[in-house]
Structure formats: C-alpha cells, structure tokens
C-alpha cells in the first residue's frame, strides 16, 4: 500500500521529468484533417489521441489537428467524435518531421458505444437489455418550448405526454406504458442528476382550479440527456416508485478545454389553436326566443297552467324579456364577445447563456436562463430566472469530487380560468347580450356573487370585472443541488457517495376587490418542501479472460420529504389599498404539515459474455413511512437477458447487420397514496368557537405497496450498417394489489377505506425506426415511433369507481372491471324524434300515472320493466336514447340504461419527424398523433341547448336544432331551461383522435467561413412553429386537453378548460 502511495506521489513527478527529457531529445509531429467520409465536410471538435498515452488534441474550426512532441516510432492514433465511429490508424512518427495523416470517418448511426444513463449508473447502449428511451439533448433544445416535458412529446415510444392546456406553466400528464394505477399517481418518477425531485403542482386550487407545474422551473437548456426507463428491468432499481416508469434527467457537464460559450434567444407569438364557436348577441336572442316560444307551445299542449303563465308570449314577449339577464333595450343593441376579452396574442421570450470549460482536472459548467411567457389568456404570465453551476474535480486519480447547484426563481400570474373570471366564464355564463361596461363606465352587472359566505368560483359573469378585481401571483424558488465523492479503491472497485438537496418555496398572494365580491378578500399562502436524499454506491467492474464482462453494483439510499403549508386570509379591509391579509379586520389562518421517508437497499449485476450474451439482475428492498410498521418493506426483483445474434459467426444476413433480442421481467411498486392512509386519524374541527375533532380517515394496517409485474420482449435492429435502425417491443404489465378506496357502506361513518385489491393490465407494442434516407450533402432523416397501449381493469372487487371526489364527480368517468380505466358511464344517445309518435318498449310498463301518454318525457321517471309492452310518447324534437334492451326510447333513465363507452387514453399514439438538411439549412417537420381516445365534453350538456334559459351562452352548433316535424338532426328542439339536454349521454362523447403538425422548424447554421470571421464557433438562426395545425373531429377547443391531471379515472374530460397555444418563434443560437 505504501508503495502504491509512493507511486501515486511520484508518478506526476516522473511524468514531468519524462516529458522534460523527451522535449530535450528529438521529437516529431503528426497533423491532418478530419472529415466526414460521406459529406466530405470537415469536422471541428473531434478528439485525436495517441493510444496508451494521455496525449490528445481536438480539431480546430477547419477540422485540423496537430500533435507535437511525439517520440519517434509507430503510434496508434485514434479519432473519436460524437455520432461517429471510432477510427484508428498506425502512424509512424519521424524525428524532426511533421507527418500528415488525414481521417475520413463515418457516422455511427447505431451509436452502440454511447454511454446511456441508467438507474444509479451508466451502460453502453450495446449492453442494455432492458427497454429504455433516450432522447438526445438537441431534440430538446432545438425546440423553443419553455419546459422539457413538452419537448418530449411524440419523441419517445411508449411515452404519452399531454400538456393539459395551453396556459403558461400548465401541468403535463405523462404516461409511460399506460396507466398502472387507479387511485395512486400514474405520473413517472423524475430523477435529476440522481436526485428524485419535487414535482406536481403546489399552487392553491381554491378558486384557481388550473394547476401549475413545478418542473417548468427547470431550464431545458441545462439538460444534457433524458432517459426514460420503461420496463421492469430498467425501472425496478427504483423499487416502490418505479411502476409508472422513471425519467432520468442528466444536466450538462463541463468539458475540458478552452472555455466555450453558448447563447441563444428567441421571441415568439402565441394564439389559441382554435376558437370555440359560441353564439353572438343577435343569435343568442334568436335562439332563446325560439326556445321560449317552443316552451309555450308545449305548455299549451300539455295543459300545464303554471307553464302557460310562465311562458306567456303576449305583450311582445314581455315575460321573455324580463327573464333575460339584461333589459330588452340593452340586450338588443349589445353584442359582446367575451372570449375575446379573455384571450390575447401571447408573447414568449427566452434567453440563455452557458459557459463550459476547465482542465482535465477540474471542469465546470455555468448556465443561466431567463424566460418570460405572457400566455394566451389575459393575466396569465410565467417568468423564470435560472442559474446553474456544476463543477467536477479529479482531486487524485483515486478521488473525484463534484457539486452542482441549480436555482430558479419563477413568478406565476393567473386569473382563474375555470369558472369565475377567466375564459371558463367567458364561454359560458358571460352572455353576449350583456355589455362590458355600464353607462357610468364601470363594469356592468357586478353585484356580488357570494354564495355560502365564502368565495364561490361558480359565481360571476362579467369577466372583465374579474380581470380587474382579482390579483394572483405566485413566487416560486426551486433549489436543486448535490455533492458527491467517488473513490477508486482499485482499478475495478469504486465507491460513490452522493448527497442531494431539493427545496421548493412558494409564496402566493391573492386578492379580490369589492368589484366582484361583497367583502374584499386578501390571502397569503406559503409552501415549503424540503427534500434530501443520500445515496451510497459500491461498484465493481472487471473483465475476466477478455470475454466475461462483469459489473456489480450495490447501494443504499434514504430519502426524506417534508412539506409545510401556512396561509392567512383577511377580509373587511379598512382601505382598498390594503391587501395584505393581516390588515383585514376579519382574518384567519390555516396550514398543514406532512412528510414521508424512504429507506432502500439495492443491487445489480450485469454480465456479458463475448459481447453477445447479456444478463442483468437487480433487486431493491424499499422501506416507506407510508405504511404500517409490519408492512413497511417490500422487495422488487428484476432481470433481463440479451442476445446480439448478429455477433454470432453463423449470422450472415447481409442487410440486417445488427440484431439483438432481449427479454425482461420484474416487479415494480407504487406507493403514491398519500402519507398516512394506513392509520385511523382524527383531525381538528370547530363549532361555536370551540375546538373539536372529527374522524378523517379509517385505517388499514394491512396496507402495502401496489405492485406490477412486467414482461417485456423486444429487438433492436440495424440495417445497412445502421442507415436504418430502431426497435420493437411488446410489453405486458400486470398491476395487482392496487391501492383502492374500497367503498364501504356509509352507515359505518366512512365512505371508503384504502385497500390493496385491484388488478389491471396494460399491454402494447412499441415500434420505432430511424432511417437516414439521404446521407450525402442533402440529408434526410426520418424518425417514426408508434406505440399502442390497451388498458383493461381486470378486477376491482365489483366496484364502480368514479372521479376523484367521493361525493361529486364530473364527466361520468368510471373504473369498472372489463373496461379501460376512465371509460364513461353514459346512456347511449340515439338522436332526435323527427315527429310526434309512440315508441314501443318491450317488457316494460309504467307504474306512475294511468295515462302516461298525456305527459311528455320529462314527467316519466319511475320506469319499471315488467312483463307487458308499453308505449312511450315523444314529441317531435325530443331527444331519444337507447335503453338496456337496445330499444329507442325518449326516456332517459340513467340507473337502468347506462352503459360503458369510450376510452380516455389513445390506443395508438406517436410521432413522425422528418429532418432535411442541406448545407447549413435544416428543415424539421414533426407530426404527433393520437388515435382511439375519446373526450367527454362535460360542458356540452349545458352548451348545446341544455342551459338555454339558465344564463349560459350556447355553442353555435344549436343552429342545427330540430325546428319542425320531419327534421332529422342530432340537436333537439330548443326549450327554455330544458332538462332534455342536460343528461349525460354519448351525445357529448367525441372522438379525440388527432393528427397535429406539432413543430415545424426552419433553421440555418452559418458556415465556418462566416462564423470564423465573426469569431464565433456557431451561429444558427431559426423560425419555428408549434401546434401549427390539427386534424380532428373534436368539437371543443383543442383535442389535447385534460381537466385534472391528478386523477387516473377522470381523464379526457373538459369542462370549460383552456385551449392550447399555437406559437411562432424566431430564434438565434450562438457559440463562441
């Protein structure tokens, strides 16, 4: 050991001496140019080194290199460059001379030697036997999007990404190989530089229903690579949180050499992708009047005296006019487009500056960024300032240390969009016959809409008043940092210890003035999330007898997460300029504190024989505070095998030059169920000013992880030396012991108890291909990825689980065995009765009134099926439904006739990207598509005649309504405040399939001849469009929509949800 140490100390000295000696003797040089064999272009930045030494240089801007002071004699020169195959050549150095050797290297389209980040380590791409998707840095940063998640859309097979809406900092729904859980989270685990990070939304949802996204605080320009672990073999090393896949993000690292700078800026404009077609003022009057008249005619027909009086049409419709929201003289001359008041042309701006450099011993990366989005909705802004430093130091040849720290400050401004205030109200309760301003110049119709004594997000119609009266801003600080030390005990054995810290602080200020509230309301809310984790890894890697390549990793990690919320609100402020809750006369506070911990041990063995046969086995034991003491630990094993057939001697298929078979199987877990579900708890209450307690949760000490077993089989292939490459996978993921809220009789005092009882499967194919169609001066690359997923609930104990809320649901999504999760429970809509007539219903009789034909359908509710035949009368224009016997009926009887329809998740989805380049020009066209998913327009039932007469604006499609006998249409007769249209039926279930021109980029990279004059390494100008156009049959705003990304069951539902944005950006990237 002492000897070794001495060697360590003396080695540099010796090298120095040797160098000096060599310099004194005769030496020679080698120079040359490195070019692309196909395009003949010179390649700057390629690395040339002398094998067996530390001597090496990079090529300059013209692709030239020169190695000097070489000892005479033969040497092996190797050139390596990202994206190219390594190339070596024997060159003989002659003393006192400069030998010229040029390299023409070929692109390595397969990139088999590339190191890919996997859980707790890296692996050569070739050695990977599990299913992972790797997204290159350029694919993310060449797209001017504010968050990295949206940049992944359509680029990774098996990964479905939906930006929930087009708002700044909008939440994103990510599904890796389908939804694997009903009640727990189905979002993947995000790990940045080894640290599982804080994700989700922490903005207050009280009155501000749309979620923000913490991950939008990550600057995409700091990211080097994103890898998505999909199958059990890849993911199970993350144990109890790996069922939904793992997204591994690696940030940029310093590169030794001259300090290089990269800078960029873009500016863009945004509009909504599509505008909802609602009635204008005159049309609103026309249709409401028609409805009024129809209601009157029907009242006369049925002899309903109360309604005859109500819908009296005499005196020039005096009753009608008084039933409108505004007086006749105002209504007739007003035509307000409220939607236009709440949307705008948005602006996006982004700038970044990175510096990277250092020596072989110490390397650094420094990055800074500024982003500002003024979104498509008025008062929706997001601003982000980020800074990042990463330093790595090789202290000794046996010790390297490093740290990185990234800090982001973001501000987020928003008016509520769902109901009160913003776009949600503008498209529904804000009527086109209501003027914006009254005669005095103040907002029209702003009586306080207070229900239940507190702020009710359902109130309010004058959006403009809300835009003035409501202020909301969130100030967010996101800190992510870590330090590590890595010790090399021997050449084969190393130890790495990491400490990661992730903090999130948020301050929200909210204020609503008396313009829209009875009492002004000010609120201040703070959230703090503190997260740290410790990871220790012991790595052993050795090649025995040149054929057995063995890698062993064992490790442990512990993670702790604490969250604190505290807030205060105030009302009855002495002055309108006082808004801080503490200046309110009436004020109160609230808060929360919670947390969880994980303690895990894990290990993995990788073994490769002759670079042909590959085996990976891993195991993790996880402990979690979220379960009772007896059920705290779980074990998650996984394994995979690979066989590179094309390495076999017998493989002589000429075109198929690379073929690898692989298979994996393993167990993964999901524990995202809230922190204390396992135990019965009583929380605080109050009454009469006294403190009390009440039951919050009924415990279940037997709770344990949700588990999934996943089987994956796949191939990786390469044709024509990698000109065409790709992969194909089949997977079957079986989730069991799913944590469900098991419904129990409420007579027990509770609605449900957490229970491990569900079973669900996901299976699908993933296919991707990269084809270098043209590789010479004109390049054309096509990337296609297509994924399928079929989800089916196998068993959830005969439950029907609806939406996120035990009491209230929206959208009628349901989880029920035999169907995909989130399918809809609806009555089938048949159409509209063209004429008055009877509908014969077999086996049915009516037990309410003796002569049911006298009544219209709205009167028939108790409808029992029995031995007799029965006739139901429908008037022309009534909606018709299909009952449980498949018969057409005018009676909507949800209890008896409901059925399961649709699927909120696509069955096929993916992306098609074509990149053309010629000289410096690059044109990239990317389509994304989603097929087979449905969207339930939960607002449709109020939009299409349903709430006519209830002060809701209507969609223009009601112009297709039934008007006279014989009309054949899907839109029923218009009636004032008709119950006929507000039923949940398949009428509002739309096919959500779409094909979208997601991005189109035209860029120009200036040639070296110009950039060198400008003293630049790189200069790129580009124009890019996002969401340029969309082919879809969907009737609402935009088919990429999700009302609530936290619930697995409630997907594919809209309720006045904001649309997506179409963006055009102009940008510049510089390197120097």
């Amino acid at each position, binding site marked *: *050991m002492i000897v*070794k140490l001495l060697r360590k100390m003396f080695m540099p000295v010796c090298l120095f001496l040797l160098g000096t000696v060599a310099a004194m003797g005769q030496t020679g040089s080698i120079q040359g140019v490195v070019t692309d064999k196909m395009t003949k272009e010179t390649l700057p930045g390629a690395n040339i080194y002398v094998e067996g030494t530390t001597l090496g240089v990079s090529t300059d801007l013209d692709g030239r290199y020169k190695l000097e002071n070489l000892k005479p004699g033969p040497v092996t020169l190797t050139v390596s460059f990202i994206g190219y195959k390594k190339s070596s050549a024997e060159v003989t150095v002659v003393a006192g001379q400069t030998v010229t050797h040029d390299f023409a290297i070929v692109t390595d389209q397969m990139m088999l030697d590339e190191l890919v980040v996997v859980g707790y380590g890296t692996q050569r791409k070739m050695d990977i036997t599990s299913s992972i998707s790797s997204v290159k840095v350029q694919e993310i940063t060449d797209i001017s999007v504010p968050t990295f998640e949206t940049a992944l859309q359509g680029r990774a097979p098996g990964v479905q990404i939906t930006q929930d809406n087009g708002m700044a900092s909008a939440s994103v729904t990510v599904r890796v190989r389908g939804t694997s859980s009903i009640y727990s989270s189905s979002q993947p685990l995000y790990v940045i530089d080894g640290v599982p990070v804080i994700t989700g939304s922490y903005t207050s949802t009280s009155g501000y229903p749309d979620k923000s996204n913490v991950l939008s605080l990550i600057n995409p320009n700091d990211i080097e690579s994103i890898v998505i672990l999909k199958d059990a073999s890849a993911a199970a090393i993350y144990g109890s949180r790996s069922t939904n896949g793992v997204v591994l993000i690696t940030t940029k690292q310093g590169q030794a050499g001259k300090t290089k700078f990269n800078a960029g800026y873009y500016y863009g404009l945004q509009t909504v992708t599509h505008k909802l077609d609602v009635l204008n003022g005159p049309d609103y009057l026309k249709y409401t009047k028609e409805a009024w008249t129809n209601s009157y005619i029907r009242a006369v027909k049925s002899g309903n005296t109360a309604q005859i009086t109500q819908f009296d049409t005499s005196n020039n419709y005096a009753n009608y006019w*008084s039933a409108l929201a505004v007086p006749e003289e105002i209504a007739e001359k007003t035509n307000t487009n409220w939607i236009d008041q709440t949307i705008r042309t948005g602006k996006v701006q982004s700038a970044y500056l990175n510096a990277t450099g250092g020596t072989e011993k110490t390397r650094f990366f420094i990055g800074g960024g500024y982003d500002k989005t003024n979104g498509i909705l008025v008062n929706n802004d997001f601003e982000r300032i980020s800074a990042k430093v990463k330093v790595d130091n090789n202290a000794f040849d046996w010790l390297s240390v490093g740290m990185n720290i990234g800090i982001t400050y973001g501000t987020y401004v928003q008016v509520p969009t769902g109901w009160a205030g913003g776009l949600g109200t503008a498209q529904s309760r804000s009527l086109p016959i209501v003027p914006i301003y009254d005669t005095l110049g103040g907002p029209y119709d702003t*009586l*306080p*809409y*207070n*229900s*239940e*004594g*507190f702020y009710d997000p359902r109130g309010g119609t004058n959006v403009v008043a809300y835009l003035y009266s409501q202020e909301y801003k969130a100030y967010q600080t996101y800190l992510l940092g870590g330090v590590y030390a890595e*010790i090399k005990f021997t050449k084969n054995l190393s130890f790495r210890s990491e400490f990661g810290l992730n903090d999130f602080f948020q301050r929200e200020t909210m204020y609503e003035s008396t313009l829209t509230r009875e009492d002004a309301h000010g609120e201040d809310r703070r959230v703090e999330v503190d997260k740290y984790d*410790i990871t220790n890894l012991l790595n052993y890697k050795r090649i025995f007898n040149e054929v057995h390549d063995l890698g062993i990793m064992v490790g*442990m990690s*512990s993670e*702790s997460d604490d969250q604190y919320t505290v807030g205060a609100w105030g009302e009855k402020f002495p002055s309108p300029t006082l808004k801080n809750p503490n200046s309110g006369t009436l004020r*109160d506070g609230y808060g*929360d*504190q*919670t*947390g969880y*911990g994980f303690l895990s041990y894990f290990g993995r063995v990788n073994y490769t024989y002759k670079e042909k046969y590959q085996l990976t086995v891993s195991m993790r034991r996880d*402990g*979690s*505070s979220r379960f009772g003491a007896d059920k*705290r630990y779980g074990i998650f094993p996984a394994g995979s095998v690979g066989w590179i057939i094309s390495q076999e001697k017998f493989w002589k298929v000429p075109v198929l030059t690379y073929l690898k078979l692989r298979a994996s199987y393993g167990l993964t877990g999901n524990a995202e169920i809230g*922190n*204390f579900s396992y*135990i*019965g708890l*009583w929380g*605080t*209450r109050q*009454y*009469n*000013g006294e*403190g*009390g*307690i*009440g*039951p*919050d949760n*009924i*415990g279940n000490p037997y709770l344990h992880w949700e588990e999934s077993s996943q089987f994956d089989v796949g191939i990786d292939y390469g044709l024509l030396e990698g000109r065409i490459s790709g992969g194909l996978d089949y997977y079957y993921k079986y989730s069991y012991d799913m944590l469900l809220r098991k*419904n129990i*009789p*409420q*007579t*027990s*005092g509770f609605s449900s108890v957490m229970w491990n009882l569900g079973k669900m499967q996901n299976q699908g194919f993933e296919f991707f291909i990269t084809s270098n169609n043209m590789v010479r001066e004109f390049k054309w690359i096509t990337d296609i990825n297509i994924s399928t997923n079929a989800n089916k609930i196998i068993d959830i104990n005969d*439950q029907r689980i609806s939406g996120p809320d035990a*009491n*209230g649901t929206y959208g009628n999504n349901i989880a029920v065995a035999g169907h995909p999760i989130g399918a809809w429970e609806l009555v089938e809509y048949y159409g509209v009765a063209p004429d008055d007539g009877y509908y014969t219903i077999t086996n049915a009789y009516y037990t*309410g009134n003796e002569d049911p034909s006298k009544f219209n359908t*709205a009167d028939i*509710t*108790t409808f029992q099926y029995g031995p007799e035949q029965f006739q139901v009368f429908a008037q022309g224009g009534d909606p018709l439904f299909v009952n449980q016997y498949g018969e057409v009926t005018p009676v909507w009887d*949800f*209890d008896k006739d409901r059925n399961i329809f649709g699927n909120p998740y696509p069955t096929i989805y993916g992306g098609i990207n074509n990149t053309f380049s010629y000289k410096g020009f690059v044109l990239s066209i990317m389509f994304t598509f989603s097929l087979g998913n449905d969207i339930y327009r939960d607002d449709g039932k109020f939009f299409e005649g349903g709430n006519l007469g209830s002060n*809701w604006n209507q969609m223009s499609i009601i112009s297709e309504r039934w008007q006279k006998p014989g009309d054949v249409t899907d839109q029923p007769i218009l009636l004032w405040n008709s119950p006929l249209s507000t039923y949940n039926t398949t009428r509002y279930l739309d096919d959500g399939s779409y094909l979208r021109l997601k991005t189109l980029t035209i860029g120009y990279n200036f040639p070296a001849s110009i950039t060198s004059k400008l003293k630049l390494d790189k200069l790129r100008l580009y124009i890019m469009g996002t969401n340029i156009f969309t082919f879809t049959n969907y009737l609402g705003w935009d088919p990429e929509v999700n009302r609530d990304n936290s619930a697995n069951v409630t997907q594919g539902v809209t309720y006045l949800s904001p649309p997506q944005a179409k963006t055009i950006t102009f940008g510049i990237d510089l390197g120097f």
Partner: protein
Amino acid sequence: MKRIKSILTTIVVLGILLTACQKVLDVYPALQIYDEAALNTVQGLQTALIGAYDKLQSGYLYGGRIWVGGDMLADNVVKSGDYALVYEEIQMINKQLSPDNLITAVLWSDGYNAIYIVNRILQAIPLVYGDSISVERNTIEGECLFIRSMLYFDMVRYFGNPTSGFGVPLVIVPQDITEQPPRATIEDVYTQIIGDLERAKTILPLVKNNNNHATSYAAEALLSRVYFYHKDYNKAAIAATDIIESGQFTLVDSVKDNYLDQTVSSETIFALISTTLDPSCGTLNGYYRIASKPRFIPANSLIKIFLFTGGLADQRYTKLFIESGGKLYTTKFDNRYMDVPLIRLAELYLTRSECRANMGDTVGALADVNVIRARSGLPDLTYTLQSKLLQDIYYERTKELFFEGDSFFNMKRLEKNISNENLLWNDPKLLYKIPQRELDVNPKLEQN
C-alpha cells in the same frame, strides 16, 4: 494510508446509515391524532362532540339543505334566475331524483358520519367514566342522543317510504366496515328516536342555554316535534306544554329578531351557532339572500297564503319579504352570521294548537294559534269549526315556519297533495333515493 481513508469513509457512511436513515421512516402526522388515542379522555369525548356539532353545520345537513330540500320538492321555492341551478337542484325541482343526486347522497353520508361520531362517543363514555355518574357524563351522553335523534328524524322523513314502511338503517353502535345494515322500519326508527330523546330529556341539564349545546328543553322540544310527526298528538302537546310553561323562552316581538347575526333569540330553543369565522348559515344565504344572488325566491303559492289568510299586514310578510327588480325575495336569511334557529317556541305553540284541535280542545287550540297570530299583528281567530280551524292552523304554521324545514313534511303528515304537479303525499317521486354507491356496497338495502 489509503486503507485508513477507506476505513474512515466507511465509518462515515455507516454513521449516516445508522443515524439518519432509520429515522426517515418515522414520520408522524402533525395535525391529526391517532384513532386509538382520540377518545380515551374526557377532553377527547368533549372535543369529539364538538366535531359532531361541526358536522351538523354541513351545507347538506342543518347548514341548509335539510331545510331547502323539502321546499324544492314541494315547489315552495322557484328559481330566481339570478343564479344558475345545479344539476341536483334541477332534479329536485323537476321531481326526478336520481340515486346519485348530491343533495340526497350527502345527507346520507354526512348524516351517518355525524351519527358515527356520537356512536363512538357513546361507546367510549363507559370506558372513560367507568361506573361514576356525573352531570358532565350525562351531558355528553344526552347531547349525543339528541344529535343522533335529530338526524335520524330528518333522515327517516326524507328517505322513509310510507308505502313500504322502510325507513333508514338504524346504526346505534359503531359498526364494522363489513356490516351491511338493512333499512329499519319507519316505526323502529321512531321508537329509537323517542326512547333516546326521552332519556336525553332527563339527563341533559335543565337550563335555558347549555353553552349553546343541546339542553333538556331542546330534547323535549324535539321530542314534541317527533311525537307530532308521529301523530301522537297527546304526547306532542304535553311536551310542548312543558316547554311553553317552563318560562325559559318568550316569543320575540319582531319576528325578524329570530334571524339576527350571532344572536340566539329569546324564542329559540336550539340553534346552530355561527361565528364570523365559522358561520352556520352560508348555504342558506346562497339559496335566499338577495345580496348573494340567490338561487331561489318564494313561490307564488306561499305569497298567496299570506294574501288570502290575513293579508299582507302580517309582519312575517312585511319584515321577511322584499321586492327587488320585479321579484319578491325573502329576507329571512339575509344575515351572514345568523345562528340558525333549529327549534323555536312559535313552532311549539302551533304544534300544541293543532294537537289540541285534533283532540277536540278548540278553545285551547285557538288560544295557541292566536298567540302566534297576535305576535304577527293579525286579529284573533274566533270560530270553533274544527276543520276550518285545522286549515287555519296549517296556514299559520306554513307562514310562521316557511323555509325552516317544516312545510314539506307537514304537508306529507297531513297527506296533502304536494308540488305544482299535485303529487300524492306518498308519491315515490317525493322520496329521497338511497344513494347508488350505497346500494352497490350494501345489497341488503332496497331502493325507494
């Protein structure tokens, strides 16, 4: 040297493992207490009792919809047009209740949740107090019985089906989550309620105001109401007399004084208390309060009763109605911090009046109804024809207690036709549906 470093490193790492790591799994809730420790002390029982009262404040219970539900079914209210009705309200107005109607479903779930709390307390009382009997113990027990009775009484009136005789499941001890209690008969539920209230009456403190909690008077007043609805008019009258003659409660001069901010009027026997930070009347404000753009205004049928039975000089009309924009609103629920008067002395007069009339004591009946009429500024009734008298008592009761959760049940009790559609009192359309989710998990339940 290197070995030493390696060893040191290992020690450091092991140190981290042993100290930091085991502790990461020890995470405890900071704002909640464990169930097993919640009810072990007197303080636990008392705070849980507060929790039960808190639950009564729910907008689906006495915070509002127990009152409003019947008025929607009876068409005592009509849509104001100021504020859109939601799905479940439209269903009730249209008499098309579905089993997922929120108003009925949450009455069920919140009701049984409150009942669970008091059942837990009742179960824990002997464990905490042992054999010792004290005023404190009796008060806790009596309040629990009172709360449970009040809930069962309203639930059985909404869910109980007079045709089949089925009431609601009767849970009087905390049940296991696997139990599937069937619907008890309406009679059995009444028997339980009456027994509980008789006991509550004797063990609760005989004071006017037990710090705003239930008192012996509250229990007896509720008992009078229960007997009345059970058509046991003799016992209802006796209980009413006890309250009226106790001298503890007096009618206020101005009816509006029953609905003031944070004031329990001299006539209120039991109220749901509001504080500025914890109002009990928010839901009622939302339904009726003019400044809140209410969902409902009084129906013409109600106005007509005022018009035709004493005229509009009635202070219940002049002080509790207001016209605005061509519509007539009620001002009963205009205050945002009103203590919701769940039982008032006026009701007991009217109850006794009707009981007496039914039992042939027309003089006594007239005396009682005239007390109420006089307070409202109406002349005394003088005739003694029983049927006409009963009719007028009905009108007085309707006018006195409008929107206070009485009218719908009163019409059912009197077997009058109900709603604009003139439905028979026992028409199944007027019954709350057993929630679908409940039928799904408890096959022993039968739908109405």
